[in-house]
């Protein structure tokens, strides 16, 4: 009995050693980067790294006064919000069709939607660039909205589809015998029942839209259309080089809301990230 207890004690030590080490590895760069955001520029790139800097809000004033940060923020929020709305409008009926009806090519259509997720953005970058150029949409949040929606549509559809498959068919059948139409069943019975799935899909789509880089870089070629993600890459002051403290602060500005939303929805996150393949 005693030996068993000692054994579990040992494995606990190893467990916490390993988990703790990884936690440290996760958090150290983040804390260090935060310290970069809260120091002045002269303390960033020095012959010897400074580990305990003097606190300074230089970067905070810089991002609002020297850069159109409010504009970038608005672009990000607008494009992301719009794209999620487009996704939900297209994905809910599509997911309903894929999860509730039996018809020819259903599996193929489902897989086609999924497979668009595998396409490297670089493959389609050139045609998409010219498409938006010809439509006169370069440098606008409309183009970003359309492209973010397209990138995330496969994920959103598959997540919602997975949640719809969990709804027992009896629920619909009861409504159908009462004479409700298919459309009414979708909007008044199914959609409210899978609300957690819809929120999960929206959160995941939001994260991927915030992260999107290549298309934004190409579509938004001037500060007019920059989002936070791409604005970062342009925080350079000519001969002064990369302005790291501003970059660090903006990174945290984007991180905090995402972190809060994810902590609130984390129960569903793993299911969302695998597009419904793993039920968390």
């Amino acid at each position, binding site marked *: 009995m005693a030996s068993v207890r000692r054994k579990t004690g040992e494995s606990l030590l*190893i467990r916490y050693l390993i988990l703790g080490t990884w*936690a440290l590895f996760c958090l150290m760069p983040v804390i*260090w980067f935060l310290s970069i955001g809260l120091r002045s520029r002269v303390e960033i790139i020095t012959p010897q790294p400074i580990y305990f800097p003097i606190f300074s809000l230089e970067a905070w004033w810089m991002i609002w006064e020297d850069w159109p940060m409010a504009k970038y923020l608005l672009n990000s929020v607008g494009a992301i919000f719009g794209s999620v709305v487009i996704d939900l409008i297209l994905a809910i009926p599509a997911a309903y069709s894929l999860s509730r009806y039996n018809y020819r090519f259903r599996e193929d259509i489902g897989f086609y939607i999924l*497979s668009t997720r595998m*396409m490297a953005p670089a493959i389609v970058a050139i*045609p998409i660039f010219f498409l938006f150029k010809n439509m006169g949409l370069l440098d606008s949040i409309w183009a970003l909205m359309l492209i973010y929606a397209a990138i995330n549509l496969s994920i959103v559809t598959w997540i919602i589809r997975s949640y719809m498959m969990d709804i027992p068919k009896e629920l619909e059948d009861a409504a159908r015998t009462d004479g409700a139409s298919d459309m009414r069943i979708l909007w008044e019975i199914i959609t409210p029942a899978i609300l957690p799935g819809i929120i999960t899909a929206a959160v995941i789509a939001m994260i991927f839209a915030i992260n999107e880089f290549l298309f934004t870089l190409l579509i938004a070629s001037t500060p007019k259309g920059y989002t936070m993600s791409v604005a970062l890459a342009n925080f350079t002051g000519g001969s002064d080089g990369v302005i790291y403290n501003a970059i660090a602060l903006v*990174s945290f500005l984007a991180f905090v809301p995402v972190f809060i939303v994810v902590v609130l929805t984390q129960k569903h996150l793993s299911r969302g990230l695998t597009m419904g393949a793993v039920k968390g």
Partner: protein
Amino acid sequence: MTNTPQVNLGPQRQSRFKRRNKKLKAWFPYILVAPAVLYLMMITLYPGIYAVVQSFHYVKFGPWNFIGLENYNELFGDYQFWGALTNTFIMGAISLITQSVIALALAYFAYRDPWVKGWRIIFLVPMLFMPSAVAFIYKLFFLDARVISDLLMRIGLIDGNLAIQSSIWMSRTLLIIADVWQWTPFLFLIFVAGLQGQDEEVEEAARLDGATWPQIFWNISLPLMKPVIAVAMVIRAIDITTMFTSVFIITKGGPAFGTETISYFIYRTGFKFFNFGYASAASVVMLVITIVVAQLVVKRAFMSARD
């Protein structure tokens, strides 16, 4: 005159309406899914055709000049293109294997832990930063502020600053570390969910039979987890092969094109050298590879994991 046809049409119209209604019912699921499919064709089918057509042309800024297979001819003899393919594969494979092993180990230790929720939130943090921000963290940490060199010097492992930027393997390692740091949480999260979703009674029964936790993990949990692991790794593999942001920000593909990925190659030939026809040819090759891999690997992984 006006009345007679109406009376005659009465039953006819009704049956036609019924027929149309039935037809509509058969088409209904297609109608529901059509808008999404059409929308996705905008970013897949249209660009695909566009890229194929453009790849047969010489396109700089002006008109498209038809040159047949010349772009492909040049592409297959281009060592930078082959280099980009190899780099993508090497960095992707090392990164994917590393993060899968780490994530599985962490998940094994964390899923039975009473504080699993806390670990999950801590481990999630890197994933929630924008990739461009992560790239800058690592660029500053390894290159511009030379923190890693300084730390290694302090503990006496090296004498001078590391010349990371002039070493292909050190540059690759830097990109891999950034990717592992940011995306191990993705796999961890899914693996933990997979382990937690398993039937506890099976584990308990094995434990009563005297099996140790490592034995249970290797012989029971892991085999049951296979579909979950496959799906997670496939998703990660897709994203790793499209690696662009960190290359763009940290290494610009250097030194000596040693870290140039296929995405960066297409970007550079298209939007730096404005050789659009050539870049399109590279896109088409990538597209073909993507479709083949999707059909062979992804389809199987997803179909086996589902439901």
